[in-house]
């Protein structure tokens, strides 16, 4: 199977189509490549031949007045398997901590989670929301969004109810201390942050 070298302009146009998510017009391509529209049209014709349907896993399509690269529909089954596989079933330490805080202290606001963790919880909260492990539960008196755990969370952790969350005393570095868990976590978080 041969694969000769594409002319320089066709390579540039190919790279631009690859990088851009949306269709690019001939005018846009010409401006970016600093050549005339005629030259771009010729390059596109060459690429259209290369990317003719059925030849490759990527196709060149003319859509909405512009050109774009798209995956071959024949690969749809594999693409679905790849892109919709269950997200990595492990939680990152940041996600596990954020989820634990929500599970044990719910409802709780993001600023409080941040105070306890000592670092921003935005990315972890976002992922947990997206994965359906936590959800919004109204707003605090200061207007901050509150979070609670979901039914999905209970299912994934094999819990019938929140009552079944393990007693933290087992992992507690100073179990003799008699303060409220929320208060102690906030205090520890502030000490770590200072």
């Amino acid at each position, binding site marked *: 199977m041969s694969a000769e070298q594409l002319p320089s302009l066709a390579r540039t146009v190919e790279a631009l189509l690859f990088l851009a*998510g949306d269709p690019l017009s001939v005018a846009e391509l010409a401006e970016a490549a600093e050549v005339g529209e005629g030259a771009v049209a010729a390059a596109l014709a060459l690429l259209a031949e290369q990317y003719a349907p059925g030849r490759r896993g990527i196709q060149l399509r003319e859509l909405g007045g512009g050109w774009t690269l798209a995956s071959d529909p024949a690969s749809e089954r594999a693409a679905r398997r790849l892109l919709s596989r269950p997200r990595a079933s492990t939680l990152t330490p940041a996600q596990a901590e954020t989820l634990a805080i929500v599970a044990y202290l719910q409802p709780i606001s993001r600023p409080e989670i941040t105070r306890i963790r000592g670092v921003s919880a935005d990315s972890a909260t976002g992922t947990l929301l997206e994965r359906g492990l936590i959800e919004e539960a109204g707003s605090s008196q200061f207007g901050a969004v509150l979070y609670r755990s979901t039914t999905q969370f209970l299912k994934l952790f094999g819990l019938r109810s929140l009552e079944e969350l393990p007693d933290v005393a087992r*992992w507690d570095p100073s179990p003799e201390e008699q303060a409220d868990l929320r208060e102690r*976590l906030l205090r520890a978080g502030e000490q770590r942050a200072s």
Partner: protein
Amino acid sequence: MRRHGEARSGGDGEAGAPVGSARYGARMSLAALELDLDVFSGPFDLLLTLVLREEVDLLELALADVVLAYLDHLEQRGELDLETATEFIVLIAALLELKSRLMLSGEDEQLLDIEPEQAAAELLARMLDARRYRAAATHLGELLAAEHGVRFREAPPPLELRRTIIAPADGSHSPELLGAAIGRLLSTPPAISVLHIAVPRISVAERLEHLRTLLRRGSFSFEEAVRGADRMTVAVTLFALLELYKTGEAGWEQQESFGEIAVRARSREAPSSLALAGRAGGLAG
């Protein structure tokens, strides 16, 4: 011919050759330092350079001048880069600490408790470590530069291909994961020792009072005045003693280096009595 391990590229050879881009003269001049401030990127770097230029004596370097040079440098540039400024403050603090240790040589048992060989080995290890990762950083910079122009597709895949169709299994996560996370969050860092920062709880006035009480006996040894006291108290007591000397209330003498300091009351009318005083009697050891 001595081979100079170098903090930066270029420069070599006999005494006085520049170390890389750090253009130091035979003595580190202020102007040279000012030039170097553009490029220094860490105190260990500077320290390494200082040690390599063995003729530089920190004791002879006026750190206040270094600060002034830096301020001039900032003014010329007309902007304050916070990161560089922070590094400078850390650097100058490190140099101050080092210099104060040099000036207190031998006195500071706690800090200079280690053998010179051990100290040298430790410092060498730290300098080599810093240097190693600085070189690794340069290497990473080269790797990154070699990738210049390589871009990746950032367009998200079509939504219809992303929709989750396989649900993760129930009970696939252990609840213990959550308990352990809470345990981690409950832990606090060990208390940070601030002993070396020495909050002055002792005032000069207090120590003046103490010395004056002792002076009523006529004489005493400095050792006696500070017996059992911490380093800060010793230092403040010394200040108080200087104060008494200034006011003419006390004088002292020391027979030999590191020997006992005998302090005695001095009448304000006859300051010369100090010079004539022999080793004061009645000194506790």
